[in-house]
């Protein structure tokens, strides 16, 4: 169902330049991010780029929670599925 993932994404800083476009399934939509100019993208970088208030959202990557304390060190790889959620009104 999903494209193959880079197994150890923690190493992606060293793979800079190998891949210029990062394709993520973000809240159910395919989104592409240029990585050639600024290098790999972390969850922290993604949230900043999206303009989200980090204190009010939670992130799941490939069905696993990404703890807030690990946003900066969690590197994203093409094919990653991300859910970014927040609280809304509900009963």
């Amino acid at each position, binding site marked *: 169902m999903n494209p193959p993932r880079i197994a150890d994404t923690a190493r992606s800083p060293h793979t800079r330049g190998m891949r210029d476009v990062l394709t993520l399934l*973000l*809240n*159910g*939509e395919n*989104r592409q991010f240029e990585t050639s100019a600024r290098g790999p993208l972390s969850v922290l970088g993604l949230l900043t780029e*999206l*303009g*989200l*208030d980090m204190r*009010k*959202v*939670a*992130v*799941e990557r490939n*069905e696993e*929670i*990404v*703890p*807030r304390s690990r946003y900066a060190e969690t590197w994203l790889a093409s094919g990653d599925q991300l*859910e*970014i*959620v*927040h*609280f*809304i*009104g*509900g*009963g």
Partner: protein
Amino acid sequence: MDQAMTDQDVYAEDAWTVAGRTFRSRLIVGTGRYKDLEETGAAIAASGAEIVTVAVRRVNLSDPKAPMLQDYVDPKKYTYLPNTAGCFTANEAVRTLRLAREAGGWNLVKLEVLGPPPLLYPDMRGTFEAAEVLIKDGFEVMVYCADDPLAAKRLEEMGCVAIMPLGAPIGSGLGVQNPAMISMMMEHITVPFLVDAGVGTASDAAIAMELGCTAVLLNSAIAHAKRPVIMAQAMKHAIAAGRLAYLAGRMPRTMGADPSSPLTGLIR
């Protein structure tokens, strides 16, 4: 009720505790289906509720600066109770609450695993499955369930911190359709016991409280009233009235009249 307490004490000391947290208000309100966030905030303030249920949903990435619930319903002032509304499988419910815990940093949650529309009746198999995983994972689970005494007891034994059967289908406003079953279920439950769905107007909430429920959880009855803020006040009073009536202990029902005025000393 302790006979040594004065009437004043009975009300003054009336509070309830769930998962170690103590609350005065016995009304839990949802934050959904309001016209806008301002009305949500105003209605919740008027209800006097201390716990509010909230849903977990995808952020709208095309409008990241849109106002958020937290701006109108302060999480420092109200206890947020994340729910799993809209979850039809145990896995969805578990993932949703793990995200909620990360977003808010608390363990107290409301679990509901629903069957298909139009009834959205509690799916008890999915509910058991999710409850087991969540409890193992350190959550304190307040659970929405069918009005099934065996299921409720089993959920309590598993470690759920509150049992919350429906009075009627979610959002139906049909009122407490099962007062006898609610009463009978309550007999065997020691953790807080709430009616969670079906309340349509103030008298329904009062009935649930008169039956002896610990508290009532409702949303649409306020949000879908023509004037939600006024209905929120009505609910606050109804919950208090129902609770006091329960504490007071109602008079027995008798078939036939029993006049209040003396039958002696009448003029002839």
